[in-house]
């Protein structure tokens, strides 16, 4: 029967269309071909980023983590995967950031004077007033490093000169990120740098000159170890109500302004840790000594609040670290694709974006 054949042909087409559609839904099309943009030098690109006016926008940012760390209880962000954040900015210093998770959300609102943070799972809001003394006269942090740094042109030149000592900087083609054309600025270590990193790529919006994507690439793979990128970005003025926050009824509101005492505690903790920098450029390592007691989980961290949910950090580290030993002593090594960390049994630590041998050399310099 002919009409039966027609029906079967139509249904076969329907099945194929449905399956293809499912494939498209599952694997959304990537960015199209690289856009053609007027060429720009690395210097002027960096300079334009430093001089760019903050834009008003709404967007969502995806953080793709491929570090190879296990998920830590309570800190799901460390595990491999994609995390999303939604951001809004009015271009005049007010901003909103929201971190949605499966059944809750953390919101951070900066309304110009106050920074609010709200956690829907705990039903708590934290309020901290911006320190008037810190940036009183509306100075941006950029202004505070003297006249030469205050001028974006010289600041960009200085920054590039400094980076060129250890890195190659270049504008490497263009890309489309969140539907917007962007320049790709690539920073790669000079051959004699001992580092795990291959290059750092930053896609800079060709019009707004704000970074749209940052990728950290490691040796031997084309998959970025960490990528932070806008998934979508809408430029334009935003509803003012987004940048205000009123704690909902039934919320516990905490005031969290750093008092002089808090600062003193933090300073003391910092002295105790006495971090020092060994090496320069890409093989910089940070070494120091962990405050006694912190590892057993009953001391307070520098900010005076960390409690690690009652877990013993040392035991936690042993779970995903590897015991190592050498002329410098013995300890636990934690390797990720972008860096290595070393914690010795007597409480010294060293971290850096370097292979483990560099850490073994650096750890000897801790007093």
């Amino acid at each position: 029967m002919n009409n039966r054949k027609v029906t079967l042909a139509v249904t076969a087409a329907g099945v194929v269309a449905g399956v293809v559609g499912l494939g498209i839904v599952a694997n959304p099309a990537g960015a199209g071909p690289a856009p053609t943009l007027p060429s720009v030098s690395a210097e002027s690109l960096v300079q334009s980023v430093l001089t760019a006016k903050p834009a008003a926008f709404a967007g969502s940012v995806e953080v793709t983590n491929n570090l190879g760390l296990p998920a830590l209880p309570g800190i799901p962000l460390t595990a491999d995967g994609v995390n999303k954040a939604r951001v809004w900015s009015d271009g005049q210093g007010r901003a909103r950031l929201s971190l949605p998770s499966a059944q809750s959300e953390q919101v951070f609102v900066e309304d110009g004077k106050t920074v609010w943070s709200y956690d829907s799972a705990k039903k708590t809001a934290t309020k901290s007033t911006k320190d008037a003394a810190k940036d009183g006269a509306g100075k941006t942090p950029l202004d505070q490093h003297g006249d030469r740094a205050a001028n974006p042109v010289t600041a960009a030149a200085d920054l590039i000169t400094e980076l060129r000592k250890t890195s190659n900087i270049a504008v490497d083609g263009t890309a489309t990120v969140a539907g917007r054309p962007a320049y790709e600025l690539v920073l790669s270590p000079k051959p004699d740098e001992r580092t795990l990193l291959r290059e750092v790529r930053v896609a800079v919006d060709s019009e707004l000159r704000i970074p749209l994507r940052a990728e950290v690439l490691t040796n031997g793979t084309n998959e970025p170890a960490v990528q932070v990128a806008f998934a979508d970005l809408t430029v334009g003025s935003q509803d003012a109500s987004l940048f205000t926050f009123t704690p909902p009824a039934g919320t516990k509101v905490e005031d969290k302004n750093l008092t002089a005492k808090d600062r003193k505690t933090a300073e003391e903790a910092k002295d105790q840790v006495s971090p020092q920098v060994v090496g320069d450029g890409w093989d910089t390592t940070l070494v120091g000594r962990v405050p006694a007691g912190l590892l057993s989980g009953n001391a307070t961290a520098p900010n005076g609040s960390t409690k690690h949910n009652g877990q013993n950090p040392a035991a936690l580290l042993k779970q995903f670290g590897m015991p190592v030993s050498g002329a410098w002593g013995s300890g636990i090594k934690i390797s990720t694709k972008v860096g290595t960390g070393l914690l010795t049994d007597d409480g010294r630590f060293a971290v850096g974006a370097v292979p483990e041998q560099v850490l073994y050399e650096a750890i000897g310099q801790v007093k």
Partner: protein
Amino acid sequence: MTATLAEASAPTEGRAPRAPLTRLLRSELRWVLRRPRTLIGLGLLGLAPVVIGIGISLATGSGRNGPDALFGLLKGNGLLLPLLTLFLSMPLLLPLVGAMSAADALAGESANGTLRGLLLAPVSRVRLLGVKAFGVATVTLIAVAIIAVVGAIAGPLLLGGTSMLTLSGTTLTVLPSLGRVLLAVLWVTVQIWAVGAIALAISACTEHPLIAMASTLAGLIVCTVLESISSLGWLQPYLLPDSWGSIVDLVRDPLDMSSLTTGTWRAVCYIVVGLSLATARMATKDA
């Protein structure tokens, strides 16, 4: 296309008078809604929000951390109840309704021996399937709507408050809250239609309604298990329940439609595949 197909597959000899579509649809609905099991099922679904509402209003514990974070928001936010009940009934209760009515629609008729009569009737098979699919779709919509309506009434009564506290810390007034509930009803209905379409395809292939229902639910359970295996991340975006958790996005402010939209497209693809397979089976079935 359906119309031409219906035209084409009408009996060639002497063109029997065709029953008007609306009459067919109406009689199918009357037939489906008069079944005691449909009515009992819908009635029990209506109890779900009431039970959850009473449970929450009696609860005194302060379990506000952890996976029950949504429950923590419920007190004083009555209009969250319909959303939460839909969220809770999505994994099993509502698919059960979709699968049950789809199983009854074709396999059930087969088991009773009444499908034979329908296949021989002067109604094209594509049309017959369309009428059956309409019945399943309507029962699903009614089931989802009952949960939402009962929840929207019981919520403010049991838990107080006619507003909705979003996860973002803002409070929506009555109308926007009801808008969110309406969006939830539409979104959940489309998702359950996808389950129903697959169930209808299985239902067309068997004479035992139990098989259609069991295999649909088994498939869904397997999907849920696969969703929880993190090394199968590449497979998960193909599975229907992948975006079912994103109904929570309706309780965020401003609304983020991105994963809800993805979920809708995924469901539409499943509906197309399911109905196509069901049509193919119906067209080749011996009367």
